[in-house]
Every structure is written in structure tokens, then in C-alpha cells.
């Protein structure tokens, strides 16, 4: 009956306390303690005790987010007095005041490839099924990490790249797909149909996280089963001629694990793309920055 949320000692103590109400029936005592455990689970919004594998990596961006949210409170608890930056900005106050939960999703590695998509595209599909149906999504962001290109480029080389984020409206049913069609071109059944969600021009000489608003697509996927979640398609192009970037530039935006770089598995968990959802479970709390 136990969900595992109570320690062995805690459960034993609660069972002995429950005996005062049950007249010694072990089954009733178990039922009482289990009911209490369920209330604890409900309080946390869990269905069972989380049991993370040892060494599970927590994305650094979520740690930064926690620190940014805690603000002065975190600083005072950890005795931080000097200037202190988390390296991560929270979403706008308008969003934060309406939500009380932020979740991070990692994309499904096996779904990265769709037949027929060009080399400078990648699919990022996130399994959103663990999102509780009782929570309302107020915003969702796609976070892509990019690192500065340190290699010397020719003087006349353009450092500007463009990242395009598309929603995949329709994915090919067969594995023989050959093309990606944009917008309303729905002529070929075996093609991928996409819709542009966001686009941004970036300078490849900076390291930072890029954030893209994917709220509409995320809402669609979660609100109706008819809107199948085919994921997002990310395209990286050089802005001057619309060509795909080459060499180092191609690795500049961390979309997938690059076996040619010296980045470790652990580090990859911190830099891989993330989908952040901001939801509200109906309780009167918010993720607004906390003050002492």
C-alpha cells in the first residue's frame, strides 16, 4: 500500500499512532497511514514517490532558475553578500505572476531525425504527456545553448547566423519522405509541413542561451489529441546568403550531442536543448522573484 513517501521509521510511528483510532486492526491502520501518504502525494502533485537514478543530472539552467527565483532569500541563506549573478534571467514578471510551476523537458534523442530534412535542420520532439491535465499552461520556451566560435574566421566572414524555429504541423507517414514544405503547401503526403514560430539573428561570437517562445505550439499539443505532437524543427542558416553554416559554426548551436567535441555526457545534459513550461495548478502562489 505504501507509496514510499514515508520513511520506514516514520511509517512505523504513524502506524502505532493510528492504532489509537482503529482498535488494533492492522488493515485499518495501514489504510489510515496510506490515506495520509496520498494526501502528501496530492500536496506535491505526485502520483508516486520520485525515485531518481543516482547521478541524475539536473540542468544547470534549472538551478539558475531556482536561484534567480529565490533572489535575495537565496543570497541570505547562503551568505552571499557581494554582487551576484545567476547567469539566467527569469521570464517576464507578467508570466511569473500568473504561474507557480516550471518544468523542464529534454527532447527524445531517437526522434531527432526525420527522413528528408536537410543537414542544417534538426527535429526536437518533447514528450509532454507527464504534464498534469489539471494545470494550465501560460507559457513555454525553447532554450538553445550556443557557444562562441573561437576559431579565427576570415576578415570578410559574416558572424551572423539565423535560427528559425518551426512547428512541425505534419510529419511524413512513410520513411520515404524527400522534402520539407513550408506554410500551406500541402501537396505532397510524404513531406514534412512546417509553420514558422520564431526566428532570430544571432552573433556567433557570443556564448549564451537563446530563448524562443513556443507557447502556441505547446498549448496546441496539450489541449487536443487531434493536434499530434510532431515536435519542432530547428534550422540554422547563415544570414548573408541563406546557406547552411559550416565547420565550427555548425557546432556553434548545441542541438545534438557532437561526438567530435570533448564535451562529456554530464556536460551535455547541461547544454542540450530544453523546453520549459510555465503552468499554474490553480493554487494562489506564483513564481515571482522572492524577497526577504
Amino acid at each position: 500500500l505504501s507509496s514510499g513517501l514515508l520513511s520506514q521509521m516514520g511509517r512505523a510511528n504513524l502506524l502505532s499512532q493510528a492504532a489509537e483510532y482503529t482498535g488494533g486492526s492492522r488493515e485499518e491502520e495501514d489504510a489510515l497511514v496510506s490515506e495520509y501518504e496520498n494526501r502528501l502525494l496530492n500536496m506535491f502533485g505526485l502520483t508516486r514517490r520520485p525515485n531518481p537514478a543516482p547521478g541524475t543530472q539536473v540542468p544547470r539552467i534549472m538551478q539558475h532558475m531556482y536561484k534567480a527565483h529565490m533572489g535575495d532569500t537565496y543570497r541570505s541563506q547562503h551568505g552571499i553578500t557581494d554582487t551576484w549573478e545567476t547567469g539566467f534571467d527569469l521570464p517576464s514578471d507578467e508570466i511569473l505572476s500568473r504561474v507557480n510551476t516550471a518544468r523542464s523537458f529534454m527532447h527524445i534523442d531517437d526522434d531527432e531525425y526525420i527522413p528528408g530534412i536537410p543537414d542544417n535542420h534538426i527535429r526536437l520532439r518533447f514528450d509532454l504527456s507527464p504534464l498534469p491535465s489539471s494545470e494550465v499552461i501560460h507559457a513555454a520556451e525553447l532554450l538553445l545553448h550556443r557557444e562562441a566560435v573561437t576559431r579565427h574566421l576570415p576578415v570578410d566572414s559574416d558572424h551572423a547566423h539565423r535560427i528559425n524555429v518551426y512547428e512541425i504541423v505534419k510529419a511524413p507517414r512513410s520513411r520515404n519522405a524527400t522534402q520539407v514544405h513550408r506554410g500551406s503547401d500541402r501537396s505532397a503526403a510524404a513531406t514534412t509541413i512546417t509553420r514558422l514560430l520564431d526566428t532570430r539573428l544571432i552573433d556567433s561570437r557570443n556564448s549564451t542561451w537563446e530563448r524562443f517562445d513556443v507557447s502556441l505550439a505547446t498549448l496546441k499539443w496539450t489541449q487536443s489529441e487531434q493536434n499530434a505532437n510532431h515536435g519542432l524543427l530547428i534550422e540554422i542558416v547563415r544570414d548573408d546568403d541563406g546557406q547552411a553554416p559550416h565547420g565550427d559554426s555548425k557546432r556553434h548551436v548545441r542541438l545534438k550531442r557532437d561526438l567530435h567535441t570533448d564535451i562529456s555526457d554530464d556536460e551535455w545534459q547541461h547544454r542540450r536543448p530544453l523546453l520549459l513550461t510555465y503552468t499554474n495548478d490553480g493554487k494562489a502562489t506564483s513564481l515571482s522573484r522572492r524577497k526577504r
Partner: protein
Amino acid sequence: NAKKKNRSRKRRRRNCQRYGLYVDFETVGWHTWILAPHGYEAHYCEGRCQYPLSEHMNTTNHAIVQTLMGSVKSDVPKACCVPTELDAISMLYLNEYDLVVLKTYQEMVVKACGCR
């Protein structure tokens, strides 16, 4: 004087007030999935709610009248010492699907106690 001081300290302690209670997530075995904080000051309320109910005891009109009734009828129970103001805490944790969640939970910290 010392006797008097001790007596008044005891009396103060028995009156309804807030006490420290640190919830250590390691103690309850939740440190494996709650990443931050390691614990938090939850506090609790305890103490007497009996005549005279002073200003700082955060009483309601009802508690004052209940106390008055108790003074003339002994079977009327005294008002209860309970949290009157609560605050939220935020936690960073791994849920049952191994997703990292930052969530704010309401009514987790006692900010003030009173007789109700």
C-alpha cells in the same frame, strides 16, 4: 527576582506563540528527490489561549466571546492556538517522471500564530 523572572518566562512560554521547527528533507528521507532547498523553517504554534487574551495573540472577536463563555461555563473549551498567517516555499525537485520541476507550494511556513 530570579524566581519571578523564571515564573514570568514560563507563563510567557505557555501562552500561544510561534516556535521554531526546521524541516530537514534528509531527516524525512526526501533528499534523494528534492534538490533545493535542503530544508526550511516551517515553525509551529503552541500555547494557551486563555484569559486575558492580549493584543498580540491575534484573537478574533469569536475567540474573545468564547473565552468569556468559558469563564462562566466550564465545559466551553478554550480557543485554539493556530497559524493565522502562512507563507509559501519554492522547491526544486525531480518528479516521478525524472523531470526537473520548480514549484511554489502555498501554506508551508507559519508566519504568525493566534487564538481562534
